[in-house]
């Protein structure tokens, strides 16, 4: 099959490649661009470990062909830290609130939470739980992930989230 030319912006940098049209975006990111933060957990669009931000949408990159991302602007977990290298409020929140254990779901979880907080800056617990329901975690039971997102939401609003990690 003829290869297709794709051009997109990933973490602020423009990239161009020739890819087989069937190349899934997750494989393009991981294997062509060496961005191994997004992971593959289920192959069937259920677990969300591959979640990235694409043109302001949370997207499961295992269920998008690279060619569909033509012209898109993509952010992966690797593009989340602040410009000065310090952790983004979400990255910090996940650490402070013990919102991760094995770390495999974390990049997808943070990317999804990132978009959620863009849309709902002060979400309730129920809104967070509903908002991250496309991301599976096998380690944490979600309770501290909810708190991590609340922590980040507060910080991004310029407030403090007092509650300690449970």
């Amino acid at each position, binding site marked *: *099959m*003829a290869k*297709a030319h794709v051009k997109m912006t990933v973490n602020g940098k423009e990239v161009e490649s020739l890819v*087989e*049209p*069937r190349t*899934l975006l997750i494989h393009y990111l991981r294997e062509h661009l060496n961005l191994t933060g997004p992971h593959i957990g289920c*192959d*069937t*669009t*259920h677990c*969300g470990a591959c*979640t990235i931000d694409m043109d302001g*949408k*949370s*997207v*499961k990159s*295992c*269920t*998008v*062909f690279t*060619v*569909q991302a*033509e012209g898109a602007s993509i952010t992966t977990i690797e593009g989340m830290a602040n410009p000065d290298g310090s952790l983004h409020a979400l990255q910090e929140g996940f650490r402070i609130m013990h919102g991760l254990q094995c770390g495999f779901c974390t990049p997808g979880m943070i990317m*999804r939470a990132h978009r*959620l907080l863009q849309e709902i800056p002060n979400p309730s617990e129920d809104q967070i739980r*509903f*908002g*991250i*329901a*496309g991301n599976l975690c096998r380690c944490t039971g979600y309770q501290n992930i909810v708190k991590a997102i609340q922590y980040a939401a507060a910080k991004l609003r310029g407030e403090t989230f007092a509650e300690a990690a449970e």
Partner: protein
Amino acid sequence: MIPGPFSYHRPKSISEATGLLADLGEQSRVLAGGQSLIPMMKLRLAAPEHLIDIGAIAELKGVQRKGSTLVIGATTTQHELQQSKVATDAAPILLEASLLIADPQVRYVGTLGGNVANGDPGNDMPAVMMCLDATYRLTGSGGSRSVKARDFYQGTYVTALKPGEIVTAIEMPVPPAGHGWAYEKLKRKIGDYATAAAGAVLTVSRGKVATCTIALSNLSDTAVLATDAAKAVIGTALEKPAVEAAMKAARAVMSPASDTRGTSDYRIHVGGIMVERALKKAFSRAKG
């Protein structure tokens, strides 16, 4: 899980897309959001030689209200539909049902057109469209035609869509002000298809149901309009016997398969309960 190889086409207009479909023939498939098709391709249950990606066609996007008709472009995503005040003010059931589909990420990408067009009985929007008496605009290289949602579904993955045609828009009459609506879906978890689901749209006059439509998801080989069930409640204030008659009539048109969600008799039983709940909620929301 890796999809098979294919050639990729990214038309910029409807006519270019239908032209490609006509030229490439039966080995081509239309790719909208891809949230159903790509998983099928990864499992190699679908292996088209050509994919025609309609995601870049601007004229397929957007929601418009034209008088008493709501027109929704086929590649409008579930997320865009939820964000459209025009759509959700006119027919709030669209929002209620849309939020019950899959999960947030899938809703950002999955389209209304894809949901109604692929003929999966587990999809939620076909029943909603039947409730709202929507019409699908089908366009081929030879022109366009309209088919009512209620006439569109023929069997699992079998629809009135002819080779070479694309669903380009979904049109529906705006339900009357003060109507009641509900979409009730029982599922095992977020991301699952319905064990049983029912939608209801009704109007109330002087405390009694004046008009009513009920449709069911994943309770047969297609979405089903439960006409007799709706008839059973018209003229009533949803008194117990009327609701029971509606549940009975609805259950009579259900024929779900037994699967990991439960046996057929279970799904029929709870299907009736979804009808009951949808009716009661819709009635409570109606004014008049």
